[in-house]
Each structure stands twice: as structure tokens, then as C-alpha cells.
């Protein structure tokens, strides 16, 4: 039996990137806001202390900051004919846990999607005809345009102090920036990070090949910065401990550095940690959320009534919460009907590694987002005619780190161990540069999320099941991108190169990206989307669902810039319209 707590105006499920922004902006209006977070409290001084933060084994390999699969995991299979099995040890992606969410230990590569990405279906068909669309795709246009989102992107970037160089200021192409990007109204809040030797080689080689290189936008920031909330950050020291680690320098934009210091001073805000929300409670007719139920660390169950419920639990867990609570119709791939779980997508890799003679790349002098990029092969920035695929990717020459347990490259053909291996490890560490691709993944009828029929969490509730594989479209795209990357690596002067390939089925084992998208996509038709253009549930209008779960398919970039933009976009609709007149913001 759960005990009922006093009512709150707003309950937020999860206190990561999206939850903290929502919490602060809503508490500021005077509303009583409670955020319920299943992991522990985390903060820079207490948890990411400079004396202990640079510990590769603890954080990078044993994954100390991440969710334990024992608490919640996901079952996975490649297609509907297989039996899904639980991910017992995280590999392909790494869900966050605790205050700050995955925002604590992200790399900080912070992109805007391209204007074409938001209407990719219409755009591709207009330019190339229906025949270019891949088999069984469920690709759909976003219900918002780049121009509508521009000011929200801007707010997230200024919140986070993103370091970069504009390529398109109010329609004027800027030297040194990304000429393909959508128009931005003002410069980045901070200048780009410094680049290393490999990035200099890339920038020269790419320019010689007619590409348009630019510094990758970064949430490891280049200079001291105070954001509009009044939170201050310090310059990045290129320590190379970003992804999987907390930043001890206050240099990485995270909820800890950018929001929590002011959020925690809001008198109407409360954070409850080590409390797992198990369900959004609905009224008898299923049309209103009455609040949430959660279980605290002692196993006690509580009911927290609220007027407004914001799911900010990370895309995947938002979808499971909706499935477990009965919000929206679950997707049925056989009939291609229903919306919750539909259009799950991911990110696909590609690229080429170059082995150089005599270089001193100093890979340890790095930052999660340090890198030189080129967008010439992203989205529809190039002619897809005759290529046989939709999509593309951003191409980057980067060092995120040189941490040696995971990073001790050897040239192809080297033995795996023994004295020869040891010598190759020594001789190669300084001499490898990589051009990597962050590729788009389209959405398909057979790639989706639902509840697993067999495996349960510790509370006895079904785990979520992921059915996913890279389809031909993505495999072709990745192979083509790897060829392009290889050309650039060669032009950089590599003596030996090796292309990466999407071989075999998608696997849960090697880390790829924590860029899980879709499952509760935004759209203008309730038959093909779970939430409307303001991320409001079509079925239960006092529930809003933040995060990359809203992406109809994934673009050739990391997601969080767009996740942040959508958060501010939804926030404006909540504050400007919903709170004045609670109800559906879009009529179905």
C-alpha cells in the first residue's frame, strides 16, 4: 500500500539535463516543483574531486557513475524472429544514474540539427523522388522547423556556454564556421577550443579536398563563462577525462555546473533522490495523470499527487514509463499501429584510422568535444543521386582521450599480446589519428521498443525490449562515409589506414553511443506520434515527455543540443500556454 503525500504543482521524473532545466524554470515561476531521481545526489566538489576524478578503471571501465543493470536494464534482439535477452553488462550505450543524469558524464559534443533534418522525408522525396526512401521505413517530418527552434537552441547553448564558431550568422556565411548550419542569430557564447596537431592536419587536408572544416561545438568550454542563470564555469584544461567521468574543473556543461547551483536555491523546489518512480497514475478514464508512484531506498512506496507530470527520465526510460503506465497506445509492428515504442533509432558509426610515421599527437591532451569537423557529407549537404541511401553524418578528427586501458592502438597485423605487441603499443600510441563519423539512423517498421514477455525488474515489472539492427540504408551510408573518411586520413599523411565497417548485426557489447532516439516521437498526427509538437502526450495532456524519445528518426549528430532546444521549446508552451489554460495544446 502506498501512502499519499501532499500535492505538488509539478512532479518531474528524473533530474538530468532536461529535468533540471524544467525544474528551475518552473520553480522560478513560483510553482511547487518536486523532482524525483532514482540515483544518488552528485556534485562536483563532493563526487568529482580532482584527486580522484581521473580514475580510468573505476569510471571508464567499471562504470561507477552509471545505472546498474540490476536496477533496470533492457532486453535486446536484432529482429522480431529472435528472443530478446537482457543486457546484463552495459556496452553499446550507458544510461546515467543520479542527479545530473547522463549530463554528468557525457562528452559534450553539442550540435544543432540541420534545417533539412526536420523535414527529411519531404525534402528527400521532393529532390530525389519516392524511390530513394528505404524499404519499410517509417521516416517522418518533424512537427517543428529549424527556424522555430532557433531561439531554443540559442538558449540551451547560452545556458551551457558552448564553445564554437558560427558558420551562418543571420544568413551570412562566416569563415571558419560550418557553412551548412542553419542561420543562427548570434555567435556561440564562447570561442572554440584549441585544436591539436591531428586537427590541424585534418583541417588542411579537408580544405584541400574542397571540404569545409570547422571546430566542433563543445560543452567542454574554452574560457571562463557565466551563464544567464548566473552559474559560472572555468576553462577546460584538456585533461581527457570527460566521457564516463565527472568533470572536476567545472569546465564541462552539466546540470551540476549550469543549473543546480541556482535550482537548489529556489524555495519552492525539492529534489528527492534514491527514489524510483514506478508509474504515472491516471484518472479512471485514463485521460489525466493524477501524479506518480515511487519507491524509496527502503522499499517504501509513496504516491506523489501532482497537477503536471514531466517525464525527464532519459528517452528509453520515458518510453518504458509510458508503456507501464498505459499512456498512449503501444506500437504493434505487425499492424504498424500504435505509437509508444515506435520509431526507435540510434546512431551509426563509420570512419577510418590512420597510422602515421613520427607524429606526436599527444592523444591524452584532449577533451570530450575537442575536434575538427566537416559537415559536407551530412544530411542532404551532398548529392545522394545514385548513392542508394538516405542520410549522412558529421565527420570529425578528434581526440576525446588517450586513457590507456581502452586506448592503446596497434597497427593491423600486430599480434594481440607478447613482446611484439608490447613494442607496437609503445610505438603506436603517439602516431594514430582517426576520422570518425556520427551517422544518422532512419526509422523502420521493425525497429521498436515494447515490454519484454519474460524478463522482469526487481519490482516484478516487465523490462523493456529493444528490437533493433542497422538496416541496408545505414550500412551503405556508413560504408560510403568510411570511404570518404579514408580519403581524408590519407590526405593527412597517414602511411597506413584502416576503414571501420558495420560488420554483422548490431551488438550490445562494444560501446557505440548513448544516443538512443525515438519511441515517443513528436508529430502532427496522433496515429504516428506519441506526443504533439510541444512534447505533450496526445492521450494524457498533463504529461509532457522530454528527451530524444521525441526524435522521429536520428540525424547525423549527437542528440543533446536538440534535446536541450526541445526542452526550452516545450517549456515556452507550458509556461506561455498550458499553465494559463491546462489542456491539449494541439487539437488532434
Amino acid at each position: 500500500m502506498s501512502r499519499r503525500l501532499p500535492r505538488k504543482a509539478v512532479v518531474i521524473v528524473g533530474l538530468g539535463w532536461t529535468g533540471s532545466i524544467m525544474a528551475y524554470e518552473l520553480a522560478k515561476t513560483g510553482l511547487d516543483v518536486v523532482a524525483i531521481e532514482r540515483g544518488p545526489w552528485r556534485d562536483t566538489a563532493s563526487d568529482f574531486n580532482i584527486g580522484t576524478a581521473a580514475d580510468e578503471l573505476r569510471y571508464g571501465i567499471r562504470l561507477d557513475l552509471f545505472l546498474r543493470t540490476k536496477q533496470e536494464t533492457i532486453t535486446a534482439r536484432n529482429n522480431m524472429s529472435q528472443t530478446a535477452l537482457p543486457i546484463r553488462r552495459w556496452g553499446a550505450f550507458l544510461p546515467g544514474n543520479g542527479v545530473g543524469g547522463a549530463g554528468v558524464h557525457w562528452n559534450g559534443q553539442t550540435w544543432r540539427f540541420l534545417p533539412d533534418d526536420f523535414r527529411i522525408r519531404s525534402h528527400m522525396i521532393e529532390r530525389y523522388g519516392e524511390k530513394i526512401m528505404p524499404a519499410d521505413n517509417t521516416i517522418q517530418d518533424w512537427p517543428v522547423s529549424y527556424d522555430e527552434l532557433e531561439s531554443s537552441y540559442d538558449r540551451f547553448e547560452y545556458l551551457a556556454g558552448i564553445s564554437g564558431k558560427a558558420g551562418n550568422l543571420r544568413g551570412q556565411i562566416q569563415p571558419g564556421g560550418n557553412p551548412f548550419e542553419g542561420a543562427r542569430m548570434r555567435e556561440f557564447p564562447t570561442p572554440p577550443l584549441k585544436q591539436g596537431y591531428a586537427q590541424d592536419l585534418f583541417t588542411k587536408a579537408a580544405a584541400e579536398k574542397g571540404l569545409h572544416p570547422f571546430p566542433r561545438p563543445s560543452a567542454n568550454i574554452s574560457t571562463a563563462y557565466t551563464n544567464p542563470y548566473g552559474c559560472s564555469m572555468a576553462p577546460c584544461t584538456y585533461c581527457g577525462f570527460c566521457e564516463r567521468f565527472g568533470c572536476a574543473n567545472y569546465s564541462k556543461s552539466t546540470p551540476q555546473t549550469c543549473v543546480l547551483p541556482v535550482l537548489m536555491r529556489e524555495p519552492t523546489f525539492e529534489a528527492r533522490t534514491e527514489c524510483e518512480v514506478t508509474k504515472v497514475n491516471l484518472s479512471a478514464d485514463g485521460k489525466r495523470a493524477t501524479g506518480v508512484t515511487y519507491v524509496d531506498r527502503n522499499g517504501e512506496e509513496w504516491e506523489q499527487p501532482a497537477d503536471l507530470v514531466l517525464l525527464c527520465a532519459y528517452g528509453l526510460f520515458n518510453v518504458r514509463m509510458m508503456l507501464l503506465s498505459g499512456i498512449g497506445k503501444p506500437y504493434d509492428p505487425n499492424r504498424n499501429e500504435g505509437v509508444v515504442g515506435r520509431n526507435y533509432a540510434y546512431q551509426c558509426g563509420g570512419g577510418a584510422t590512420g597510422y602515421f610515421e613520427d607524429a606526436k599527437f599527444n592523444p591524452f591532451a584532449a577533451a570530450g568535444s575537442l575536434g575538427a569537423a566537416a559537415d559536407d557529407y551530412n544530411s542532404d549537404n551532398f548529392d545522394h543521386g545514385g548513392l542508394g541511401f538516405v542520410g549522412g553524418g558529421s565527420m570529425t578528427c578528434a581526440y576525446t582521450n588517450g586513457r590507456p586501458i581502452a586506448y592503446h592502438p596497434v597497427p593491423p597485423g600486430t599480434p594481440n599480446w607478447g613482446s611484439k605487441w608490447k613494442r607496437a603499443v609503445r610505438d603506436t600510441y603517439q602516431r594514430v589519428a582517426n576520422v570518425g563519423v556520427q551517422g544518422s539512423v532512419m526509422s523502420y517498421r521493425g525497429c521498436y521498443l515494447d515490454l519484454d514477455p519474460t524478463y522482469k525488474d526487481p519490482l516484478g515489472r516487465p523490462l523493456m525490449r529493444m528490437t533493433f539492427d542497422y538496416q541496408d540504408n545505414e550500412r551503405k551510408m556508413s560504408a560510403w562515409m568510411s570511404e570518404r573518411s579514408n580519403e581524408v586520413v590519407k590526405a593527412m599523411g597517414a602511411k597506413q589506414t584502416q576503414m571501420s565497417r558495420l560488420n554483422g548485426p548490431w551488438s550490445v557489447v562494444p560501446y557505440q553511443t548513448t544516443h538512443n532516439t525515438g519511441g515517443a516521437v513528436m508529430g502532427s498526427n496522433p496515429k504516428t506520434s506519441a506526443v504533439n509538437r510541444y512534447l505533450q502526450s496526445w492521450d494524457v495532456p498533463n504529461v509532457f515527455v522530454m528527451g530524444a524519445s521525441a526524435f522521429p528518426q536520428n540525424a547525423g549528430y549527437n542528440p543533446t543540443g536538440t534535446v536541450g532546444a526541445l526542452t526550452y521549446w516545450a517549456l515556452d508552451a507550458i509556461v506561455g500556454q498550458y499553465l494559463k489554460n491546462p489542456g491539449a495544446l494541439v487539437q488532434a
Partner: protein
Amino acid sequence: MNRTTRRQLLSASALVALTGTAFGRSFRNGLPWSPNEAYPPSPITPRAWQFFSPDEVAAVDAIVDRLIPSDDLGAGGREAGCTVFIDRQLAGPYGVHDGLYMDGPFPPNPLPSQGLQSPVTPRQQYRQGLAALSAYCKATYAGRVFASLSHEEQDALLTAMEKGEAKLPGYDGRSLFAAIYANTIEGYFADPVYGGNRDMVGWKLVGFPGTRYDYRDVIDKPNQPYMLPPVAMQGRPAWGQLP
């Protein structure tokens, strides 16, 4: 690690301090930490072996020494303390699959793309695997154990295990090899606080400066060698004598 962490203490006192409703933890009106509180790992100190038996120590010493031999480039796996590292890892939470989802069913033929699908913990893996290796060696090499084989014999057997060609009795040689290989690499390159990478040999081999945490000067000087010696979490080599 039996030490009560500050976090446990904090949680415990928070529970006592809570009046009325018993939430997990409730935070409002300010930040709930005191500066300079962190939870550092306890350094490995010279103590008795915590998991391995003497026979197991001999076998693992011999294996890590073939995987990363001591040579003119510096200490290898054994001298670097990889066996100590693995012993302490197995004795700790890693050894028991702590935090991992271990509910069944465990179907017999999972897809390779589905990753770890066995309830056998790293501790069981080493115990059973090393026993199988010992039995295999005694049967194949006239009563000798792995540690007493020649380097050539050891290398040939490790190669066969790696390829899945050595049929150890009742244990998959390939999975034993994979576990020891992964843990040896970890031990050789992890911070010395965990008992391996003694004198930061792994870091010196590749030129990784450790935990210096500030390379603005390096970024400013492209393509220049880095000359400073590495620094570890304890600031100096964490020597731990073999027990």
C-alpha cells in the same frame, strides 16, 4: 572494502534526521555537500592474497608474464603487479558481478550480439578455469603445471586457448583467456592504486602522463614530445610488495 564510506554515513544520518515522512533523501534550500569530500579508492597495501591460492598465483603470474613479457622495454605483467591487481579485483565487487542483472532464464545459445549471458561470476570463472587449465597441463605435459612449461609451450597453449582450440576439461579455454587478457590489460594500465601498473610502467611505456589533469601547455605546442613523468592518484608510484 569494509570501511564505512562517508556516503553511507551521510545516508544513515539523513534517515535519522528526517522527521515525518521517510523519503529516500530530500534536498531543498541549498546544496547538501561539504567541500572536499570525495570517496577515494583505498590503495592496495601489501597483504596476503585475498582470492588466489598459491597454485593459482603461480599460474596467473606465468600467464600475465607471457601476455606482457618483461623485456628491454620495461617490466611486464607479473612485475607490474597484474596478478595482485586481478586478485584484488576478484576479491572485490567486480568478482561477484556486483550490480549486474542476473535473473534467468539463461538460454543455452545466446546470440553473440547479446553479450554476457552467463551467471558464472569472474571469481567462479577464474577458480574453475584455472583448475581446468591445471588439469589440462598435467594431462598433456606429463604432470607439469602451466607455470613449469617452457615459454614456447606456454605461448603455444595460450594461442590455442585464444583461438578456442585447446579443449580444457569442463571449461571453455577461450573465455578463460579472454578474462585474463582483459584483466591483465586493465592491471597494466590502471592507476597503481589498484595494485598493478607498478611504478607506472604501463603509462611510461606509452607516454601517458596519468592524472595531471591540465594539458593546456601541450595543446599549445603541437607535435612536440611530452617530457614530464607520469603522476598517479597518490602522486607517486604506489609500490605494493608481493605478499
